[in-house]
């Protein structure tokens, strides 16, 4: 129902829909409510058309319900803005004179065309597959989508988009020990343009495991200079039997800056035998495929102190003779811990 120039509109959606689809739905049913989106390039001159009115129509405009403060020009049903910037963003509505009926609503969004994205790929689940991530160095300020394609030995591989991370995809290795490089092409697309970036790499170069897990360092009883360190291979590494990892352990006392290093093959434990007695140590482990790729990041640091001998307790012995009218004297004994009670008995004459 209409009351003057106030329109009522309600849209009910049954299922959960993305915002874009809801907007499109609302626009179709009640175009004046949401407004069609118009994307324009930053710094350019913009023309907004009021619906499908004739050239001799007379309209007035408002942005977000208020008067337009920016420099502008009116040409019949058209609003002209010059050298637009983000400040021009808004919901522009046009009203036909003389009665002021709203004819159109335009959601003006200023932005830029995308630039070449930066792409990197890595395999932490070798030999199962690898993932690629990309990002834009500069924001485009408007919604931008990405298309990815991956080729290997002249064949296109299937690409799985990450369900959580918008800028990540996953690819399974079609084969292992390949001499052919992989080529990943990422294209950024928005309403104002598109830009691509491609990278090429060999299977062996992108392998980097996740850091080792559950690093535990424990002192060894009766050994003041030893610490036993154990850890697990990263849980993301799928086949540690056929694709074993080697490890790099580093440790130093908290009071020192220099690390000591040990490289270990196919073993998930090591005993440090040259620790300074009584000093707290910080220990980390990294992992690498025994043949290819690069070292993982360092694991979470663990702290441990070698076993320390407990100070000996000094026990005192007292004679249980009955004292009758004897002299009791307190004699301090050298150890700080106990005071020996000396009872001297005197026979009563």
């Amino acid at each position, binding site marked *: 129902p209409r009351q003057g120039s106030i329109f009522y509109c309600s849209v009910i959606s049954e299922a959960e829909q993305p915002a874009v689809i809801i907007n499109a739905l609302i626009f179709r049913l009640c175009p004046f409510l949401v407004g069609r989106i118009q994307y324009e390039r930053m710094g350019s001159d913009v023309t907004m058309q009021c619906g499908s009115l004739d050239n001799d129509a007379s309209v007035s405009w408002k942005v977000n319900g208020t008067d337009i403060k920016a420099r502008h020009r009116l040409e019949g049903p058209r609003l002209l803005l010059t050298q637009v910037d983000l400040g021009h963003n808004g919901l522009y509505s046009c009203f036909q004179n003389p009665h002021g009926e709203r004819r159109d609503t335009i959601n003006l969004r200023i932005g830029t065309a995308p630039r070449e994205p930066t792409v990197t790929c890595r395999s932490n689940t070798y*030999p199962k597959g690898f993932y690629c991530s990309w990002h834009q160095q500069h924001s485009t300020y408007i919604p931008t989508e990405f298309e990815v394609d991956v080729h290997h030995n002249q064949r296109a591989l299937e690409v799985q988009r990450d369900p959580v991370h918008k800028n990540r995809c996953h690819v399974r*290795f079609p*084969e*292992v*020990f390949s*001499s052919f*490089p992989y080529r990943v092409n990422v294209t950024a697309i928005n309403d104002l343009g598109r830009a691509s970036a491609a990278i*090429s790499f060999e299977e062996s170069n992108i392998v980097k495991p996740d850091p080792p897990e559950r690093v535990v360092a424990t002192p060894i009883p009766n050994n003041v200079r030893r610490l036993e360190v154990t850890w697990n291979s990263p849980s993301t590494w799928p086949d540690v039997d*056929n694709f*074993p990892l080697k490890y790099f352990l580093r440790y130093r006392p908290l009071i020192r800056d220099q690390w000591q290093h040990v490289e270990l093959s196919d073993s998930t434990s090591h005993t440090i035998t040259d620790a300074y007695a009584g000093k707290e140590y910080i220990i980390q482990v990294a992992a690498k495929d025994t043949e290819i790729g690069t070292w993982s990041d360092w694991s979470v640091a663990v702290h441990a102190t070698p076993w320390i001998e407990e100070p000996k307790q000094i026990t005192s012995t007292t004679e249980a003779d009955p004292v009758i009218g004897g002299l009791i004297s307190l004699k301090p004994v050298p150890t700080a811990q106990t005071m020996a009670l000396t009872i001297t008995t005197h026979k009563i004459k």
Partner: protein
Amino acid sequence: MTKYLEYQLKEIKDTYLSYLGPPFNEKDFSPPRPNTTALSLPSAATRLELWRGLENRARLAQNQRAYSVLLAAVRELARSTLCPYLQTSLLHFCTGLDGLLGSISGLMTTLGYALPPPSAVSVGGSDGELQEPRRDGFWILRELQSWLWRSAKDFNRLKKRLRAH
């Protein structure tokens, strides 16, 4: 042994690529691979499940065959190289490869596996010559690199399986 050869190969490959000059010595350059009639090289690449499921005998046989072919290929490459330093390096490398091949054959015999009959192995055309020495040389060394990497994993798997028995 594979590690030592891998290290040696890397040095030779860098020298060889500089010798070939552009575009071979450019980073990420990969010339089209010749088809198998022009240059038949044993491919180290394999489907993961196939590789995992290889029986000890088949695993060793594949390695043995690969290095037989690659050894002949590197010898041919050495022969067709004009640079004396590179030729010496390649021939020296062949000695190492020959040693590796000998170890594999020896292991096969010890395990009671029959060795394939020594056939005339040639990678090139009918006369054994490389048709396109530069491109072929690139791929011979490339495939050799993949095989040395794969062999390390093959031998590790063999070690574990033989230990289990």
